[in-house]
């Protein structure tokens, strides 16, 4: 019989499956990997140095933010320590015109994109929801409802195509978020629309306490791509060179009209889910130690040092830059926040409704009444 298929079914799975093992360019000891790294190419030395620098700065920002939670200066902070290569490698390949769609976990990525640290932390400090202007940096608000941002990214990317703008959207999500229906719908829309979007899954092994084995029975998360006709890459998420190169490939493909790419970056979160979480309840310190040995910064430091691309003086300057960054963050976060109750009624609609005006007036009257009393 003739092959039975509906228009749209190609029946061939060629080229849509990821590699059998995660691709890396620089291994955990800082050496170039002997294996062929598929489509990935080692970034130029200047790029590698910039990846390194941004990781060091990002790490310092991250540890500073964690410290601020202990002092009660931040309501909560979800650290990305250990995922530094993803945070930085995802962002540097993006062009100015491209968009980043981060989650709550991706503060370092947002900082790397150029958003001032204190604007990023407004949310976690409790001053307002999104502290930066998404259009200024082309960074969507950090997204908490899991996986919902994948659809926004696809929509934005498709709108770029409809308007013939050369823009790529990169959306970050976790292993847990891949289980949500929205991720599926986003991958599917992206595949059908050939939208210029890159899905970067940071597979850090856990969704809060739930390990990957309880999250999916898929051989890898990258293997989901074929179900949407989307090419996928499985990479070592602790190798900044691999992350950079993979995102680069994906952005180039998207920009050239080749459609979406799904990237699974295998990595690990060293800290607890947030400062409010107790990770000892669900994972062993041995496991954490193993991953500490795969530190993304250490391996790039080793690589650069061995090649004379980073000497002690440069490392010292970088450390100083990182301290200055941390000082600035501390200083600005130690200042009292100034919030304005009247702002509650702004931004609900383009123009406050009569009812909101009345509610504002009532609140202001109430506050005025209390003032003399206090």
């Amino acid at each position, binding site marked *: 019989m003739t092959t039975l298929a509906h228009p749209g079914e190609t029946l061939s799975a060629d080229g849509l499956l990821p590699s059998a093992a995660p691709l890396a360019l620089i291994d955990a000891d800082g050496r170039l990997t002997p294996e062929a790294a598929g489509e990935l190419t080692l970034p130029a030395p200047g790029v590698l140095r910039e990846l390194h620098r941004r990781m060091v700065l990002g790490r310092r920002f991250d540890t500073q933010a964690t410290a601020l939670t202990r002092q009660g200066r931040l309501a909560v902070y979800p650290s990305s320590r250990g995922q530094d290569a993803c945070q930085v490698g995802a962002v540097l390949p993006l062009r100015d015109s491209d968009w980043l769609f981060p989650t709550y976990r991706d503060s370092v990525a947002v900082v790397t994109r150029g958003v001032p640290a204190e604007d990023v932390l407004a949310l976690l400090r409790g001053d*307002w*929801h*999104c502290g930066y*202007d*998404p*259009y200024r940096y082309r960074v*969507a*608000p950090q997204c908490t*409802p899991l996986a*919902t941002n*994948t*659809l*926004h*990214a*696809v*929509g*934005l*990317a*498709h*709108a*770029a195509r*409809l*308007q013939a*703008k050369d*823009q790529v*959207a990169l959306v970050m999500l976790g292993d847990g978020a891949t289980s949500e*229906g*929205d991720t599926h*719908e*986003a991958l*599917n*829309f992206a595949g*059908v629309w050939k939208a210029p979007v890159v899905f970067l899954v940071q597979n850090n092994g856990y969704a809060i306490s739930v390990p990957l084995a309880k999250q999916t029975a898929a051989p890898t998360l990258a293997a989901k791509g074929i179900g949407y006709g989307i090419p996928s890459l499985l990479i070592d998420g602790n190798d900044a060179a691999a992350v950079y190169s993979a995102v680069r490939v994906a952005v180039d493909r998207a920009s050239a009209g080749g459609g979406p790419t799904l990237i699974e970056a295998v990595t690990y979160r060293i800290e607890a889910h947030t400062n409010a979480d107790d990770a000892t309840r669900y994972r062993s310190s041995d496991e954490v130690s193993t991953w500490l040995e795969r530190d993304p910064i250490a391996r790039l430091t080793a690589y650069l040092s061995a090649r004379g691309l980073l000497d002690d003086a440069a490392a010292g300057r970088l450390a100083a830059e990182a301290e200055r960054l941390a000082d600035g963050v501390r200083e600005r976060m130690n200042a009292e926040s100034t919030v304005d109750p009247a*702002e509650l009624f*702004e*931004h*609900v*609609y*383009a123009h406050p*409704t*009569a*009812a909101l005006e009345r509610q504002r007036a009532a609140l202001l009257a109430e506050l005025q009444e209390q003032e003399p009393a206090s």
Partner: protein
Amino acid sequence: MTTVMSASASAEETAAAVPAPVTMAAALNAALADSLAADDRVVVFGEDVGTLGGVFRITDGLASRFGERRVFDTPLAEAGIVGTAIGMAMNGLVPVVEMQFDAFAYPAFEQVTSHLAKLRNRTRGRLALPVVIRVPFGGGIGGVEHHSDSSEAYYTHTPGLRVVTPGTPADAYRLLRQAVACPDPVLFFEPKRRYWSRETAVLSVDGPPVDRAVVRRPGKDVTLIAYGGMVATALEAAAAALEEGWDVEVIDLRSLSPFDDQTLTASVRRTGRAVVVHEAAGFAGYGAEVAARLTEQCFHYLEAPILRVTGFDIPYPPPHLEKFHLPSTDRILDAIARLQWEGDNA
């Protein structure tokens, strides 16, 4: 669905036409066509809205007239439709999407409540989402289960959304055009039982703005408050009431959120009596807000408690039973009769 929705009529042509009979479906189709013609940023998408023209034919002819980049079919996923609409709006477009039936908007609930409604607020006004979600709602068409829900109350309780519903063809055109032009996200509820009701009208965007109620029939004895598919029923009831000696004022809310306190309060203070009508279940329904709010604002003017005539507190019934469930003119007249008229000994 003839003259007005003709795919070649431009916005100007439509507005200049002489009064002609037009169905609500045709008026909505014209509003979409004219919105697409008037503003390049407008895109129309959803399930079956392209080639087919929608299961109710509201988007008929639009794909062929405006092309596949402006009017297109999507994969079958409502969260996907609303979620991508949000992303498109972020990137400068004005998406007008269709949910095929009211109950099939539920999968998009998180995208609507956590993002569409809140993103302007969350970003301190930097991110506006001028998205319109069209939702055919209500019963009375003999639809099998899940095809006749009235879910407006869910959305009216969600700050950041506008909720609008037309009661007549001319208003369907006007309100939809205004909704498309509105910088806020709008849930646009189309009363499917009235899609084929006709009115002789010139379709025009001018007229009462999207957030105002209108008095459809002035009266002095009692204020009858309705919206969407119940506007026509309320007008019928008002006509019947006249025979029983009640001069009923009928108000078409049009905008469920925000609520037009001014028009409503003025009417109820004048009449001293009011009845709210909707198809949705009464319990914690939208009518509760209307009643509670107007009671607060008009307490000393009220001769009787504001009554609600609504669907029962049950899942929408099967076709052969829906007539028992839906508010009828009789049931509205009954409620009016219970408003403690002089001489009553209630």
